[in-house]
């Protein structure tokens, strides 16, 4: 009984979106007489749906908690995850990649393709957001201009921002360039740099940011970041990958880190800018 009404509701639902002609033939006559019926079905479906959702959640807790019992002990050396791969990475990361930060060396050299994929994901995400939020409509653009003019920077925010921005910028650059020898790296440094640019835009207004961060610069930065990464990683692979000289590997890690940082920075500022005014 329950299943039938549920299925019928689902069928009707799919018919609506996909094929209106077919739906007209099928539903037009019975739909009018059964409007109240449909509403009742919908509320019944909502009830069943809520109950099912809670039941699935509880079931999920039980299943996962039972599986915890079979987990290896937390923090123990004999975990299956702590195998020879870790020994290899920690043991030879410094000699092979020149990075003292094993994680940076690992994600930029041993797992470099993976990180390249991540950078591409960020690149694609900013492309999608651009496509979705770009204010092509003149009306929206005019509204944006109006709100831009109306929104004066907050006094407290702009005063604090003027004090903080240079330090955040320098801190971001510091993280970016020291990523391979200390905690940090391309992703964290790029985020901090992006945050500093956003803070600059909030403090001095987007017009001041537009003076150096135009659409052209934005495109150049994010595309050249990805290109530098691809070229440097290609050089690394064709120069012998793990057999490469430690000094050379050190510089390659630094440059790849920088490229990742540029991509992340432009992505962060791109998100902020497209969400606030639909344009750069």
């Amino acid at each position, binding site marked *: 009984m329950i299943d039938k009404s549920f299925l019928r509701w689902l069928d009707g639902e799919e018919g609506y979106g996909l094929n209106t002609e077919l739906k007209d033939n099928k539903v037009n006559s019975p739909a009018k007489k059964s409007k109240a019926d449909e509403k009742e079905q919908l509320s019944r479906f909502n009830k069943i749906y809520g109950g099912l959702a809670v039941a699935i959640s509880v079931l999920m807790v039980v299943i996962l908690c039972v599986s915890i019992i079979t987990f290896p002990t937390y*923090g123990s050396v004999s975990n299956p*995850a702590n195998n020879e791969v870790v020994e290899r990475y920690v043991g030879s990361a410094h000699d092979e990649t020149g990075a003292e930060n094993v994680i940076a060396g690992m994600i930029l050299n041993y797992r470099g393709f993976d990180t390249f994929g991540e950078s591409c*994901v960020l690149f694609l995400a900013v492309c999608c957001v651009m496509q979705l939020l770009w204010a092509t409509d003149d009306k929206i653009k005019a509204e944006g201009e109006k709100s831009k003019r109306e929104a004066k920077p907050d006094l407290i925010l702009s005063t604090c921002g003027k004090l903080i921005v240079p330090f955040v910028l320098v801190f971001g650059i510091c993280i970016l360039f020291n990523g391979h020898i200390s*905690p940090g790296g391309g992703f964290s440094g790029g985020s901090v740099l992006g945050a500093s640019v956003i803070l600059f835009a909030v403090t001095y207004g987007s017009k001041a940011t537009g003076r150096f961060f135009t659409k052209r610069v934005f495109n150049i930065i994010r595309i050249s970041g990805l290109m530098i990464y691809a070229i440097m990683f290609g050089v690394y692979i064709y120069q012998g990958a793990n057999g490469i000289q430690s000094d050379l590997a050190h510089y390659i890690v630094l440059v790849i880190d920088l490229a990742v940082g540029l991509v992340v920075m432009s992505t962060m500022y791109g998100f902020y800018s497209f969400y606030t005014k639909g344009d750069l």
Partner: protein
Amino acid sequence: MLELIVDNRYTLTAVILFVVGLGNMMLHPNLIKKVVAFNIMDAATFLLLASRGFIEGRTAAILTDGGANVALYVNPIPAGLVLTGIVVSVSVSAFSLALIQRIYGSYGTIDMNELLEIMKKKGE
């Protein structure tokens, strides 16, 4: 029993967070809240991964005075995986929020039930 819970406290927290996110994702009709729930699920996964890599009494995998002695550092691989996860989660959140903004722009609502009503009306 208590020992088991204390031993696996991070895993247990991750399980609870994951199910909180899953339940919210299924139950809330508001699309923004679905994105928030999705992010909670992400956080649970990262917590589980990061806690798997920890080894008692060792430090972060940044080579210092000890040199490349494996017995001094925790497992660096889960940290790298979490980094991947964070990037993907940020990208997906940004993309879905942009989609939601467009949905609000063309339908004036971000409530799933109201959107279904509008869809039905358009179909008729």
